[in-house]
């Protein structure tokens, strides 16, 4: 090796290293620069103004706990007790959970020594380690007396409203109403609503009742729970699966014959092939969103529109995938079938289809799985299935426990289909290898 060669080699290596180094520093710098640009153009600093910590707190709190409202109408003097302040969760008048004693002076025990007394008009709150707070709403606003010393920050006092927030609950007094919130862990009334005779019964009581022939009634009370609407939820999930099923398999049925027309080894006419390929490209390229909008105009909102939107887009995808699978078939099998004097149709039936079936089925299953996920989104747009229930629950901006419930159901649904279709596809691929 001459010196000259070594020199060029050395300079080449140096150059290479120089480039490598430039890349190694350049890529992170480019990424950082891009993120800086996004940071500025999305106005991320402005988030603190737009965002609301209060919303976040109420959302997270609602996800794992619920509150019971005890409200006194200060004009009429009635006390009403309801779970989450909802009509469906209201206790019948005169009834109360065991931590409330109704009477001329009602006693509300918030736990941990926090006691609230509703008098004729006034309210007394005994806060442990602080003292006794007295308040009375009147025409001129809310009058209140506190223990001596500066007002702690958890008491919010103005002329017309006093809010006391402690770790045990919250007391709000205005001219019109006095309201106490007590927080509990868990989702309220998940199994039975208050009007069901089974509310508040323990599991052992329920099992013994179930064995005494009350099982059907227990099941109906649970199934038609007015707050959680288990039957509606089950139906919605079924609808989501149905949309995905119809969309995927409908698309497969449409795409299957068309794919033959777009396959090079089946259709010798280039213009025909070109035509169908462009159709596939078009239905695929015009996104789910656009198809959903167009179809929703013709068919109105509902699950049919969602299923049809999937049929249209997946026809494009399947057409492309299927025609590629058909192009990849082994020609020897077709020749073999032909050598026995098979006609054209028979050649496809016995030469092509057995080869592509496992591939096609596995692709269809894969898309079925992803369409189940897609069906929740499309359901939210066209109004069908669990996607619709979820958006409705989100729009109320208060039923976050329902949102959590639906999300958990969606995760379970998606995981289950993932698992199932994975198993089936594995079997299909193995089966095709064995044959």
């Amino acid at each position, binding site marked *: 090796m001459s010196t000259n060669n070594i020199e060029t080699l050395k300079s080449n290596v140096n150059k290479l290293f120089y480039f490598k180094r430039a890349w190694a520093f350049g890529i992170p710098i480019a*990424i950082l620069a*891009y*993120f800086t640009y*996004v940071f500025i*153009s*999305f*106005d*991320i600093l402005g*988030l603190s103004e*737009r*965002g*609301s910590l209060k*919303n*976040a707190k109420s*959302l997270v709190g609602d996800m794992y706990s619920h509150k019971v409202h005890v409200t006194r109408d200060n004009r009429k003097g009635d006390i009403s007790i309801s779970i989450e302040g909802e009509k469906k969760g209201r206790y019948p008048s005169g009834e109360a959970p065991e931590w409330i004693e109704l009477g001329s002076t009602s006693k509300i025990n918030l736990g941990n020594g926090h006691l609230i007394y509703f008098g004729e008009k006034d309210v007394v709150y005994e806060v442990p380690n602080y003292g006794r707070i007295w308040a009375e709403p009147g025409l001129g606003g809310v009058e209140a007396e506190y223990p001596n010393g500066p007002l702690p920050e958890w008491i919010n006092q103005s002329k017309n409203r006093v809010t006391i927030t402690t770790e045990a609950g919250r007391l709000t007094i205005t001219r019109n109403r006095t309201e106490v919130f007590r927080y509990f862990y868990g989702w309220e009334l998940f199994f039975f609503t208050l009007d069901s005779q089974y509310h508040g019964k323990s599991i052992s009581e329920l099992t013994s009742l179930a064995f005494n022939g009350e099982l059907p009634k227990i099941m109906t009370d649970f199934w038609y729970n007015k707050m959680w609407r288990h039957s509606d939820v089950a139906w919605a999930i079924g*609808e989501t699966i*149905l949309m995905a*099923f*119809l969309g995927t*398999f*409908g698309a497969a049925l449409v795409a299957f014959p068309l794919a033959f027309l777009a396959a090079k080894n089946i259709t010798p006419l280039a213009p025909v092939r070109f035509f169908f*390929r462009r159709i596939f*490209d078009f239905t695929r*390229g*015009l*996104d*789910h*969103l*656009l198809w959903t*909008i*167009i*179809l929703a*105009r*013709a*068919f*109105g*909102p*509902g*699950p*049919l*529109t969602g*299923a*049809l939107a999937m049929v249209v887009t997946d026809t494009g995808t399947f057409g492309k995938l299927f025609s590629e699978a058909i192009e990849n078939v082994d020609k020897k099998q077709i020749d073999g079938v032909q050598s026995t004097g098979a006609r054209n149709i028979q050649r496809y039936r016995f030469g092509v289809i057995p080869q592509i079936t496992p591939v096609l089925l596995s692709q269809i299953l894969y898309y079925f799985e992803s369409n189940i*996920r897609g069906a*929740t*989104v499309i359901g*939210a*747009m066209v109004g*069908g299935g669990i996607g619709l229930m*979820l*958006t409705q629950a*989100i729009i109320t*901006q208060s039923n976050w426990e329902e*949102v959590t419930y639906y*999300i958990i159901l*969606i*995760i379970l649904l*998606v*995981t289950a289909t*993932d698992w199932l279709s994975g198993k089936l596809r594995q079997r299909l691929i193995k089966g095709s290898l064995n044959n």
Partner: protein
Amino acid sequence: MSEITSTQKYEAEYFELIKKRRTYSAILLGVFIVLMISGFNVVDDRNAGSFWAGITSIFDFPREVILEASEKIEKIPGLFVKFFPSLIETINIAAAATLAASIFAIFLSMLATQGMAKWPRLIPVFRRTLDIMRAIPDFVIALILIFILGGGPVPAMIAITFHTTGALGKLFSEVNENASLQPLDGLSSVGASWMQKMLLGILPQVSPNYFSYALLRFEINIRISAILGFVGAGGIGYDLKNAISWGKGRYDEAGAIFILLFVTIVIVDQLSGIFRDRLTHGKKSEGLL
């Protein structure tokens, strides 16, 4: 003569088998057809408009849009300019989310792969984390974040990042399983840290595959980012929703946005197709067919 009887026996067995198989196939096909038809009827009943009434008017809306857009054809270029910034926002949401998700997914997938994980005992934890991230639909996260963070592109970006991290993490960990672990031994012997081992030992092997998957995901994310705009996050989806819910009179805008979106999706699909082809098959690309 025994030969003939055995052939006959086999023949009979063969036809028996075929018959059995055909019955099973027929039953399966029957169940499938019944499911399709009854499913279709259920869905048709619950829809606002029926299939047979709607199928005739399927092109009414596109026709209206095209008619109005062609009447105001001279305004279309101006509308392109008007909506271009929102298009850029939609693309930026997808790009930033894909980029961020790729970075998260690289680390999470390595932590979830046997042989590479820094804490091998925690592999199942990271796997399940990725599964859950993948399972939560992005629009759900977006809607919840819109409630907390207010409208705009940030909720969409976070939502897509979250879901994409899960999706890419799974794909990346499949790539990781095929990577050779020998460079890691070499790097361990010179005392490299876990970070150095991953960056110098694994990343060079897997980066073409990573890049190809990330590009594919970018394609998908542009579509998702447009959809999320439609449900309330910013970008061109939001403009499209406004133009459509306005109805007649602003269909020229709807048309312009349709075209912008369609062209963008096609261009990104084609470009990423070319790049991915190059990454997986080397520089020579076979063309796009």
